[in-house]
């Protein structure tokens, strides 16, 4: 087991061509480092030597740099996730100080999966994730292509397109509440020009999710623009020229030649966008200043916090959190694995 772990890590570390591999590192160092390493070997026992042999010469000396922070992070992130899972197996609720760990079962999960409210929340979460990500990517790509056309004041345009992202969800929720206001909001005035509306975007359960997605797209399409712009700049100009020599129209050139080269940017941007979408809790909470978001926009994140921190169904909330975590893992996991395999971490 350890050997296989070692070969894996060796391949990973040794596979990085731009850095000296652990083995050649030892060879290089024999000249100058020999005195020191002999002294160290002499003063330490066999265990330390074994650790050094396994992980590399600098392993022990490097631990003060990363181990304390790693432990802190692991405690808060992975320790909490494990503890959360454990709590989800109990019947913890109400004002009790501690859960009773003696009787563990999956009852909360059964309750969650069969609950209609949770099912609706799952559907809404998916709709939000997919629609938000796709629209953000498409809109951001168009913006990036426009900004990349050698325009003047490029910096100004870029800065303003990205501006909403620097704002808190709490702040943007206030803005959009006012924008969507049925009596005096700009969005309804816009529809009024075409003789439509007014619509109660936040109050109508059929419209609210789309309205929230639109607001989130406003906030984050600047981000996708920045990512695509960096990627567009990396494409050699010859590709544009070759397409134009071949007589392709601008639209065709982008569609056939340029857009396919943005694949990697699309993948990494969609992963980050999904993380933003999972944080939409802040936005939905701020729309009403309450644990219950507008009717028709309840997602797993809001449902979980409401169950745990308003209704004090701690175990039930934890179970919903595990479902949400599994959903995120299903999206993020393959991406991380891909990055890990291609040594992009």
């Amino acid at each position, binding site marked *: 087991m350890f050997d296989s772990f070692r070969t894996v890590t060796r391949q990973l570390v040794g596979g990085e061509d731009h850095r000296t591999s652990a083995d050649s590192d030892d060879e290089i160092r024999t000249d100058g480092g020999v005195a020191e390493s002999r002294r160290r070997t002499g003063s330490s026992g066999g265990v330390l030597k074994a650790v050094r042999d396994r992980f590399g010469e600098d392993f022990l000396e490097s631990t003060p740099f990363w181990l304390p922070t790693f432990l802190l992070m692991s405690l808060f992130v992975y320790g909490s996730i494990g503890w959360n899972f454990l709590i989800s197996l109990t019947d913890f609720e109400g004002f009790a100080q501690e859960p009773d760990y003696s009787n563990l079962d999956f009852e909360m999960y059964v309750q969650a999966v069969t609950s209609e409210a949770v099912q609706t929340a799952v559907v809404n979460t998916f709709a939000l994730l997919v629609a938000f990500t796709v629209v953000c990517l498409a809109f951001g790509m168009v913006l990036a292509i*426009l900004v990349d056309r050698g325009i003047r004041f490029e910096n100004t345009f870029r800065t303003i397109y990205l501006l909403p992202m620097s704002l808190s969800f709490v702040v943007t929720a206030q803005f959009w509440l006012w924008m969507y206001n049925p009596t005096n909001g700009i969005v309804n005035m816009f529809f009024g020009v075409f003789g439509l509306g007014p619509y109660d975007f936040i109050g109508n359960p059929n419209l609210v999710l789309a309205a929230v997605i639109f607001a989130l797209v406003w906030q984050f399409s600047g981000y996708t623009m920045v990512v695509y712009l960096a990627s567009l700049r990396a494409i050699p100009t010859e590709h544009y020229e070759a397409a134009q020599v071949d007589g392709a129209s601008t639209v065709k050139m982008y569609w056939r030649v340029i857009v396919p080269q943005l694949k990697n940017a699309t993948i990494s941007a969609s992963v980050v966008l999904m993380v933003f979408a999972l944080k939409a809790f802040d936005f939905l909470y701020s729309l009403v200043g309450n644990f219950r978001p507008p009717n028709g926009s309840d997602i797993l994140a809001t449902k979980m916090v409401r169950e745990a921190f308003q209704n004090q169904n701690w175990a039930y909330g934890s179970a919903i959190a595990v479902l949400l975590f599994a959903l995120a893992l299903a999206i993020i996991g393959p991406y991380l694995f891909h990055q890990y395999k291609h040594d992009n971490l």
Partner: protein
Amino acid sequence: MSTKTNKSTADRLFEVDYYRVALYGTLVVMLAFFLAPIETGIVTSFKTQTAVAETLPFLPAGGEGFTLSKWNTAIDVLSRGLLNSLAFAVPATLLSGLLGSITAYGLTLVNWRGQVAVLTLFVAGIFIPYQAVLVPLSKFWGVYVQLGKSLGFFWATTGISKDYAALIELTVTHVAYGLPMCTILFRSYYKSMSTEMMEAARLDGATLRKIYQRIVFPLSKPMFAVVFIYQFTQIWNDLLFALILVSSSSSPAAPIVLILSGLGSSMEGTDFALRMAGAFTAAIPTLIVYILFGDKFAKGVAS
């Protein structure tokens, strides 16, 4: 012949102009789209209740309809939260940035086997939906590590209200959950760093600590700016942890976003002017940071 060429050049010029007009037209429409919610927010924040109802939402109100009272109220209500937010956002930003840099150094510029496994755990930590840690987190601070009690002597001797323990909790929490992002940002920077100088120093017998202090830290300054800006924005804007750890916007330690989320709504309806003024008050620190260092912010989000 020559007139013909001239004509075709003129045609082309006209064509190009036409295309440019369409391009800039679209860009300006987009500009309006991105600025509209902010613009209507600014003008509304200076309106009286009647002006809000009677004037167009995107036009400023003159004369009778103009008032500064909403801003006064908003600043009155939010100044406590502004200070609270600064009190935990600044230390948390500095700490997580510094620790992230040190961690990334130990995991990137020092060579040892197995660091990729540790890094993977850090990267995965970025993508965790925080809902998955909320119940344990609230129990951890609320039941097991009660800073209000365990630091009793501190609150007693300084005379500071025990409620402010929440600010320490928020600092530690934000550092712990910010570490993955900070570490990865620094790692991406360190990966492209030339290791020659460090290897030479190592051959001369320099310790890892010396190398960090003398070589890596000074070279990391541009990245520190990027990380600090990103972290500060994230921590300042976060509502979820504030909501869970402070729980009530009436607490003396309530961060600004928490107070803002309940501002301007009453039985009579929503006071939009007050809400807009409050929203801008809460956004001012991040807006200042963004306007001054926008390029660095872009760098942070792009990587």
